[in-house]
């Protein structure tokens, strides 16, 4: 039988991991865009706030932040439900994973996007404004498409790191690849085999996403000539 009957369980775990990675990626990209705009804004408190956020998050290990948020949010929620006199709500590990991963990698994306925003020539934005475009239109039509080319290597890097970081969410109880393969290993007494299977699934995901990133990089570099030596 395929994987001794644990195939469906592991497949389910793989889906959870991919879903978690994609949703937290989306959240962290949004946070990153907002954070980068804050870092580059002319508003001083905003700049300080964004700098504090990125410095703090990037110096504390992600697992510590994850546990901190997971447990403290639960306690906060318990106090809230106690106060309101309703039944206790348990935070779902998937949601906790998305929030913490999004919050942590938002800091890394902030740095990525800040660098990319700055790499777009200022004249481009001036020209767009001169055409009478509103800020949002400038962002959508001029800044964003050009910024993406500079941001893509960083985005790719963050994505690869984040895929691997999703493995940590099993520690706070999500039934992802790690949990599924460990459970399968424990009940079949073949922990070694199933841990290797888990590793291979991650390897397949990272290899696949490498290919997609290469393709995207080529797509966003259309029309850019490379210096020939």
């Amino acid at each position, binding site marked *: 039988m395929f994987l001794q009957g644990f195939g469906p369980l592991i497949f389910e775990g793989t889906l959870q991991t991919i879903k978690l990675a994609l949703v937290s990626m989306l959240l962290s990209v949004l946070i990153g865009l907002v954070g980068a705009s804050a870092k580059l804004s002319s508003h001083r408190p905003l700049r300080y706030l964004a700098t504090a956020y990125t410095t703090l998050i990037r110096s504390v290990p992600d697992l*510590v932040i994850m546990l901190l948020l997971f447990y403290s949010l639960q306690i906060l929620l318990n106090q809230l439900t106690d106060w309101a006199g309703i039944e206790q709500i348990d935070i779902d590990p998937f949601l906790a994973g998305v929030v913490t991963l999004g919050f942590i990698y938002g800091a890394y994306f902030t740095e990525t996007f800040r660098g990319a925003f700055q790499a777009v020539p200022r004249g481009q934005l001036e020209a767009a404004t001169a055409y009478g475009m509103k800020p949002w239109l400038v962002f959508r039509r001029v800044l964003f498409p050009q910024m993406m080319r500079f941001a893509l290597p960083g985005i790719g890097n963050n994505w690869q790191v984040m*895929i*691997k970081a999703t493995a940590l969410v099993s520690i706070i109880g999500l039934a992802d690849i*790690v949990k599924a393969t460990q459970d399968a290993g424990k009940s079949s007494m*073949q922990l070694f085999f199933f841990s*290797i299977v*888990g*590793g291979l699934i991650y*390897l397949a995901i990272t290899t696949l996403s490498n290919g997609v990133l290469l393709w995207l990089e080529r797509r966003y570099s259309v029309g850019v000539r490379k210096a020939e030596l």
Partner: protein
Amino acid sequence: MNEILQQYWQAYLWSDGYHITGVAMTLWLLTASIAIGFVLAVPLAVARVSPNPLIRGPVWFYTYVFRGTPLYIQLLVFYTGIYSIESVRAQPLLDAFFREGINCTLLAFALNTCAYTVEIFAGAIRATPYGEIEAARAYGMSSFTLYRRVILPSALRRALPYYSNEVILMLHSTTLAFTATVPDILKVARDVNSATYASFEAFGIAGALYAVIVFALVWLFRRGEQRWLAFLKPQAH
């Protein structure tokens, strides 16, 4: 907050009275894995840039596998996986090694950081200016002397900024050690959390300690860069 600090500061920093714990354990995990990783990475990086595919291939495969999978899985393979194999437990030497969580942790950490370090160093070696190698060859240096005198001193220096990143990421990764029952900072924090239910304080103290270590590392590496990368500084006119 104060009570927790009063009761647990020693456990957070160096000892719970029986074992080395907290910051001392984390720093030991970091230095040991980084040191082993570095020593292995230098020759492997040289092999990684070899023109011979039979030498380059296996090293590529090693870094591909270890960089493509999460460290947590690697740790689980070494800690619970290998020990579950019967023939390992039958061997007294292997049995003694893999029974201890700290041995498995160090093995997994060292192999993991080594894989990333190999790629960093290999990248720096590849970026060595062609003229430098040509000049060294013209002086009649053998390949070994070429590496010892020209390529490695310059490549390792140029790799320093990227290497410092890897060291800090490794520090972040040492938090996984608690899953193999190694009493590092995070393990102490978890114990404090389950004893007092003061999650925010318990993990907050741990986070602050990690941040302090990171800032110290960043400072150290900046000093190192000033010293060893002085020749790459933009020249003042």
